[in-house]
């Protein structure tokens, strides 16, 4: 269902992406998926990890600025048109997508996508009403191993 995503502010300079990744690595925390938004000046690194509280603590101790955001994980069929069909549903439901990215692993013939909606609760309700498979955090994490 709703997942907690960590977002980090990074300066757009060499080696600045490495600091948080190394900190997580040293703490034995695996990144389940990520996306990086970049501008000329700065970047925003968004991360999904299993234990976000611990990861946040590790990152803050490494001197990073960390924010948390609620995102929604949705399961679609891993076939041509899987995403396009889902976007049709989202469009009809009148939900605006701030951004989205995909998980690096699938579940057999299914793919998992991460959506950032302005109002995640409203989005979850509407998606479920439309019969879309919103993934529970617990089941997602158990599949990620």
């Amino acid at each position: 269902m709703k997942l907690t995503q960590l977002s980090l502010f990074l300066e757009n300079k060499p080696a600045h992406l490495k600091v948080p990744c190394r900190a997580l690595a040293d703490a034995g925390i695996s990144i389940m998926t990520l996306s990086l938004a970049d501008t000329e000046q700065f970047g925003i690194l968004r991360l999904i990890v299993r234990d976000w509280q611990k990861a946040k603590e590790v990152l803050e101790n490494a001197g990073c600025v960390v924010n948390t955001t609620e995102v929604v994980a949705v399961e679609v069929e891993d076939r041509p048109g899987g995403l396009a069909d889902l976007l049709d549903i989202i469009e009809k439901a009148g939900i605006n997508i701030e951004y989205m990215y995909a998980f690096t692993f699938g579940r057999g013939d299914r793919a998992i996508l991460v959506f950032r909606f302005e109002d995640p609760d409203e989005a979850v309700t509407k998606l479920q009403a439309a019969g879309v498979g919103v993934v529970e955090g617990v089941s997602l994490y158990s599949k990620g191993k």
Partner: protein
Amino acid sequence: MKSKTHASGGGFNPTSAPDYLPQTQLRELQLARLKFIVKRAYENVPFHRQRMEEAGVTPGDIQSLEDVAKLHFTMKDDLREAYPFGLFASPMEEIVRVHASSGTTGKPTVVAYTQEDINVWTNVMVRSLISCGCHRGDIIQNAYGYGLFTGGLGAHYGAEALGATVIPMSGGNTDRQIMIMKDFGANVITCTPSYFVHLSERALELGTDLRDLPLRIGVFGAEPWSDGLRQRAEEIGGIKAYDIYGLSEIIGPGVAIECAMQEGLHIFEDHFYPEIIDPETGKTVAPGEEGELVLTTLSKVAMPLLRYRTRDMTRMIPEACGCGRTICRIARIGRRSDDMFIIRGVNVYPSQIEAAILKVEGTSPHYQIVLTRAKDLDQMEVQFEVTPEMFGDTVGSVENLQRTLCHAIESTIGVRAKITLVEPHSIERSQGKAKRVIDKREG
């Protein structure tokens, strides 16, 4: 046995008696001292004698306080040229201490004290601390730098004479400062305001919230600071923050101080005679108008200074103060004219930028102004350290913040600045004075 519990405010302390002198008595005292100091400078310091002769003025011409306007100004450059001991009025065997200000360009400026001068300095520092609500029995952590800088020793002797317990920490070594503050139960801290905010932030990182400690008063000075920074210091430290003003050329800290009303700073005018002048023309401004503060030391034996140009911009507050002190008040110094920079023909003070930043909600005072020149056009960049409060997960939210900051600055000073957001702790923290402006332009 010192009591560790105090009522707020505190009773009258006899050391502060001169703060409450009736005006006629105060003026008589000032005139007697002015006559003495002008004569002393004329007879013992060739620089002052020469300037007075050039102006055709003799000590006998000083018959009223207004006659001070007949005298020459003394500039910072005059002190530099007299390096090291050229402006001393006392023989070296009577001088018990020297201090020197950091020389930003070339040689430092040296100042001297006889024992009598040290006693005056201690007296005005005691009166300063009393004015901020400090008492005998307080534990004062003195984080002003000890050494040639006047801040450390000035606050130290004042705090001791008050009857407080002094922790002579000096500046820097922040983690140790925090440990000592906590373990010794300091309830007063003396340092620069920017350093205090730095210390408070570091304490939070180490898991110590200063609001949970006995600390209740900060006596902050040695750099100009805005009301926004005061709020920040008070919030993060759980303290009352007071502004102390001073400069080594005059005596050090303890030239002027806030009182409980916090509506300007009282100048200890029984020792330091103030004038407010137009920095362009040198003429005295109308009462209450802004101008440059000029000070004449009325009792300094070792190194009397006549009409010293402080480069600090302020104005007199003519109304009587609610605290009952009769000595005059000046508005807080928001800017030093030597902090000022000119960009594209506009005079800019870092404090104006700071005020603009603090208007934008949720931004911290850690910033730095970088001036560069590209193709003969001056560029101003303001770098901010990002905090979790000011950034979101979308690019739009960050760009929006940049626009808000850019607009706030432009509407304050009329110059467009490039806004760069940087990671936390990437701007160098001040251990002493805050370095707010980096000027990379040539010439």
